């Protein structure tokens, strides 16, 4: 009889423990707003060759390099950038044509490509530092997705001893808001 009473008492205690209920309805929560300072900076879509984290976004034709602000390219140096904004975005590239290679190759014709589409093609008749910048049509890009940004060099300098191919000396490549 004691055991039966104890069992009944235990069941009562358990039933009491079941009285709590989780809420089933809620008021609207705090409304989220864009947080100040969260907008990416002007260089967020640019790839600098001196950055240690540049390698993961290099798609092809850029020689490895560390600790120096430039890298040699091959024929079609290509990088991937994440597009934050599609409005008023410009293609931007900083590169140089080496004096010595220019003596061999002569003037270079360089194409500027976004997602494989030709944005512009320019013939460079002198060596030295170059900067290219041009607006990209908004419908070429999609927000929050990656875009490929590339140069295409028409002639390559071939190193006489190693046979390695060189295009231009690239410093920065990408998109700018």
């Amino acid at each position, binding site marked *: 009889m004691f055991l039966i009473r104890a069992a009944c008492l235990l069941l009562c205690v358990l039933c009491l423990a079941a009285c709590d209920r*989780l809420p089933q*309805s809620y008021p*609207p929560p705090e*409304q*989220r707003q864009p947080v100040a300072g969260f907008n*990416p*900076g002007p260089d967020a879509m640019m790839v600098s060759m001196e950055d240690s*984290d540049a390698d993961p976004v290099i798609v092809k034709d850029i020689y490895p390099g560390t600790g120096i602000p430039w890298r040699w390219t091959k024929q079609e140096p290509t990088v991937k950038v994440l597009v934050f904004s599609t409005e008023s975005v410009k293609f931007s590239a900083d590169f140089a044509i080496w004096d010595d290679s220019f003596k061999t190759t002569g003037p270079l014709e360089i194409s500027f490509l976004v997602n494989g589409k030709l944005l512009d093609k320019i013939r460079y008749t002198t060596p030295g530092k170059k900067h290219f910048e041009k607006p990209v049509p908004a419908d070429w890009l999609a927000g*929050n997705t990656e875009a490929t940004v590339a140069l295409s060099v028409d002639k390559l300098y071939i190193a006489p001893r190693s046979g390695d191919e060189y295009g231009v000396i690239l410093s920065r490549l990408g998109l700018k808001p």
Partner: protein
Amino acid sequence: MIHVVPVLFGALFTVATAWALGMLLLRNLALSFDPWERRLLAFFAGSACLSAILFALSAAHLAYRGVLLALGLGSIGYAAYSGALRSPGKAFAPLAPLWRWVFIPAFAAFTWYGFFNALVPEHSSDGMAYHLSEVVIYQHAHGFPRITNDIFASLSQGIELLYLFAFDFGRHSAATLVHYAFLIALAFLVLSYGRRIGRPAVGVAGAIFTYTSPVVLRDATVAYVDVALAAVLFALFYLLQVWDESRDSNLLVPIGLLAGFCYAVKYTGFLAVPYAVGFVAWKLLRNARKPLLRPVLVIALSAAVMVLPWMVKNWIEVVNPVSPLANRTFPNPYVHISQEDFMRKYFSSYDLASRWQIPLDVTVKGDHLGAFLGPIFVLTPLALLALRFREGRQLLLAGLLLGSTYFGNIGTRFLIPIVPFVSLALALAVANLPWLLFALLVANIIACWPAMYRIYCSPNAWRLEEIPVAAALRLQSEDDYLSQDPEYRIVRMIGRVVPPGDRIFAIGQNGTSYLPRELLIGHHSAANEVIEDILWTPVAAGYQPVLSVKFDFPPREFRKLRVVLKGSETDGQWSITELRIFDGPKELPRDPGWRLTAHPNPWDVQLAFDNTPVTRWRSWQPAAPGMYVEVDFPRPQPASSVVVESSYETVNTKIALEGMGTDGQWTTVSDHPAITTHPIRTSLRMAAIAELKARGIQYVVIHPGDPGADDFFRYPAAWGLSLVGQESGAHLYRIP
């Protein structure tokens, strides 16, 4: 080498305390056994008692080292003082020399392997990931803190509480040695069973088959609980057989305690309670003169002492007494039904092409199902020959019943609980041919020796491979030994970088028992799965709310509005990123007086009304007609359109808008919405990280292979994250 002393002390002190408590229990119940039998059964009964006491101490947050020391010393001292440690009774006849000289060297040789592997710093995946992680949390809190974001904290943890006792003195390896002690006790109890039924050779063979089984020995040498469950189940079987012989009603108390302890050790041991109750009831029913109610109640109540605390703890903490299971029966905000469904589906198949792969894989290969039992178990069908003996029928019945949970998880480890029964039944099947039994025994010993099984098992099989004496004796430092494991190196890196008190989120991370920080892991709870969902939205196009489903209707007043699902999805879920209500061209501001609800998963309904594209209410179970998201207005509210923003995942989902007018009647307002798509124009990455920050998370760990990992690695700035640590491919980011 001095560092091994606290490890051994922690383990031995735990075992001694359990044993002393068991000897006190058996002495007070005036039970009669063979001396060795008494010592072994005392360990199991005492383990149950110690576990129950530790539960009470942990619930009261009194699990301090001083309290545990006093408990242990008090138990051992009182047992010694009261004479309970003496083992009176008639001893079994000694083993015949042949069987003694088979058993001793085989046991010693495999113990050489097992002991040193158990003594090495604990580095098993589940041991580091959760068996001991929870122990570390309990040790720091001196008891049970309320944990709602880790399903593993909701499992019954009867053995982990013994680990807590050992851990307080000897840390990880002491806990592991406690598990190994269960295997040693099991092997001797199996041997003892053979002697009890007058077939010592069967006992020797059964003990060796069990002890040398590669999966059993491997499992026992890490801080898992499978071998402990096997041992406690077998001890329960043993006591029931003793009761069947003696009908001593005092045996019913330890029988009930051990039956309940099986559940406390592991959920899959729950069948022990109906087995014990059914066994006793059946035996008594066959003898109609015997009263039935009292014995059954004694067992049930003794079992309840071990079972109910875990159920009540879960009921209080996570609203589900058997969490993380049965979430349809006990709906709660802590474990998603989809998560339970996924686990159930995966563990019952392990993605095997056919179940015909199971027999060879679990016995010999250990390729897909994790480990292997040993080739002797290929002969399991032969065990049916044991049916000709009463003991054989009892063994096979217990093995069949207690192993019936196997198909819920077909990993080889989940067969460990029936290994002693099958081992004894196999030995019994050929017991009348001693030369054959001897040959099988020798063949098994050879086949299970680690140098031999690497010839036939899969290279992926989980098994013992070497005897790491230097690491076991701490001649090689723990840190040095453990650093061979990349997961350990990662948690060490996290521990170095993240200050105490800060929260970390990871999609997946092992080794957390070596990380004294709060680390939330994606699949460990409903809330953590929501965080995963938030993190994946920026990188998974299918998750992004590019779809607008608009219901236009003549303006009118509503007391309630709800969007109702009309079609079902076979596998997919239903989700709503934002639900917006308009009166003319103007969206109604979300009034604090609104009451929002949803069915199912009402607890996440606010995610559809928070104005961020990276959070969403999800059904977290297959979409089914009748599901809804509802707004209850505090006063009649004019409205003329409703827009549901959701992802492409729900493009084919048929939904309707229903409204309750001022007359209190529900009517369908519109079931032909206009569907349009729109591009995302804000930074989802930044929004996702802002959500994590709002949830108190300061760090994120991303491993190569995690969904979206490449995106984190390439564009940390786009997420607003700073890389603060790297180890073995894992990246640790700080949320500014």
